[in-house]
């Protein structure tokens, strides 16, 4: 096929939009922790842009989209090593340059591992986190992304170039990553939180967000970037992208309203953190479903997922794990709901062209969605737990307690976030 400038334009900007999601996430997360840990929180996301972009270029794209090594489980890590072979003008993916496709998909890998960091606020060694990022994307993300995102293709000789098992053999629908991104990161967050244990003072001290304007800015950038994530997953500027875009807005709007309603009823107050959280819940839930439902279905999925998340975020106190910023309560819960509800709310009128249970399509698709969701969940939980535990038992994953109490920013990064008081910089620094 030939390169189409219109599709390429959309995919270029979509890629930039998805890149922006990671700093957006850094702010969303960073605003929620205490001032003494905001820089570390942001750095856990930022470093993912650094490390994963390099790995992806070296072998990550290959493992995800390279020739399948068998069973739809993982691609060949060497096929596109260094991405030097995809930069020629003839290297085309669909109607866009392969270089653009490779960059677009890179952003998904960057974001997914960054999502996990919300579970371990204020207490992870930075070096251990970097090691975790490297191992996790290699062992967990690239294979799972291969399962879900690598559709069978045709090679130069006209033979089938087989892709991942979920996309092709199972044929579950996951348009933009409900399973590969959100269930994956959400359950990994649970595993890593279990390994690291609770923050000092968890359940006793308040840990209130130190900067809610930063949280809202982060949520806004996430929403903005998510259009690239979802509508960009059409890999073209076409009618599918249009419907996906519309569904993404509507689901998110409904989700924000739903979360605020739950809060108003339960606590008497609709909060700004609730609005930001509802936005993210809605975005997560519509991600797998956005090509398969109509705007009313999108509204329903967004609203239901968000309301459930609003209730689920308190579970950690009861169950006693410190998923600090509710990655489980948001990404796992909304990811599961979104992925599974495709089997209920899908309508053949939407681009994906499949009817779900509620639209007379029977439970076929529903079953596929459930299998895909739990396959990813199980693999990711086990593999993540092992990785995190191995790191913890060797180089250690957690900072010393007094570093945690003083503040991880100072202890790990030798920085303090704000110096805003009236005598500001005079609070005692010297150039040594």
């Amino acid at each position, binding site marked *: 096929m030939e390169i189409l400038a219109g599709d390429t334009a959309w995919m270029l900007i979509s890629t930039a939009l998805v890149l922006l999601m990671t700093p957006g996430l850094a702010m969303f997360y960073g605003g929620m922790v205490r001032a003494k840990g905001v820089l570390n929180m942001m750095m856990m996301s930022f470093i993912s842009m650094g490390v994963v972009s390099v790995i992806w270029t070296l072998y990550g794209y290959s493992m995800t989209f390279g020739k399948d090594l068998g069973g739809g489980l993982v691609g060949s890590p060497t096929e596109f090593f260094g991405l030097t072979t995809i930069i020629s003008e003839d290297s085309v993916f669909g109607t866009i340059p392969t270089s653009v496709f490779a960059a677009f998909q890179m952003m998904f890998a960057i974001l997914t591992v960054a999502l996990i960091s919300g579970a371990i606020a204020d207490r992870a060694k930075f070096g251990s986190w970097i090691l975790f990022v490297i191992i996790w994307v290699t062992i967990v993300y690239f294979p799972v992304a291969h399962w879900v995102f690598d559709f069978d293709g045709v090679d130069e000789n006209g033979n089938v170039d087989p892709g991942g098992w979920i996309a092709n053999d199972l044929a579950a629908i996951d348009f933009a990553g409900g399973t590969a991104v959100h269930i994956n990161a959400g359950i990994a967050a649970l595993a890593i939180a279990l390994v690291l244990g609770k923050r000092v003072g968890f359940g006793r001290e*308040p840990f*209130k967000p130190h900067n809610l304007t930063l949280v809202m800015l982060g949520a806004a950038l996430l929403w903005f970037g998510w259009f690239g994530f979802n509508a960009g997953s059409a890999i073209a500027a076409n009618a599918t992208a249009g419907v996906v875009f519309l569904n993404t807005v509507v689901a998110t709007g409904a989700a924000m309203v739903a979360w605020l309603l739950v809060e108003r009823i339960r*606590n008497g*107050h609709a909060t700004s953190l609730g609005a930001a959280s509802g936005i993210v819940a809605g975005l997560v839930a519509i991600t797998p479903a956005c090509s398969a439902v109509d705007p009313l279905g999108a509204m329903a999925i967004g609203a239901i997922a968000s309301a459930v998340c609003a209730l689920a975020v*308190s579970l950690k106190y009861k169950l006693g794990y410190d998923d600090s910023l509710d990655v489980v309560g948001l990404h796992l819960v909304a990811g599961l709901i979104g992925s599974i509800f495709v089997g209920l709310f899908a309508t053949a009128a939407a681009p994906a062209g499949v009817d779900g249970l509620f639209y007379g399509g029977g439970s076929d698709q529903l079953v596929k969605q459930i299998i895909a969701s739990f396959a990813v969940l199980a693999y990711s939980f086990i593999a993540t737990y092992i990785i995190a535990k191995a790191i913890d038992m060797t180089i250690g994953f957690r900072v010393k307690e007094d570093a945690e109490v003083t503040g991880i920013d100072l202890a790990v990064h030798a920085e303090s976030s704000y110096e805003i008081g009236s005598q500001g910089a005079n609070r005692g620094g010297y150039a040594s």
Partner: protein
Amino acid sequence: MKLITAIVKPAKLEEVKSALSSHGVAGMTVSEASGFGRQRGHTEVYRGTEYTVDLIAKVRIEVIVDDKDVDGVVSVISTAASTGSVGDGKVWVTPVESVIRVRTGESGVDAI
């Protein structure tokens, strides 16, 4: 000389400041504080979890005055700061042995 320290509601700072000015008090020092006492704190909610915040924002005002002015200034402050509702604050007086104005080196009452 005496040091008069007043803990008042932030919203009353302007009024106290004007009242002191009118009364002829030449200077004062103000700082942020928060207080705990009979006034109940408030509740904040983050992701469904409720936090009780029991330290309430207050302003500390400090004025050095000559002995003879103590009663007048204390009553000016407490009048201006009063809203009649709980949490209005306290005013207390402590002895000061000497005062110096940094700029001139003047000391005693001249330094105020």
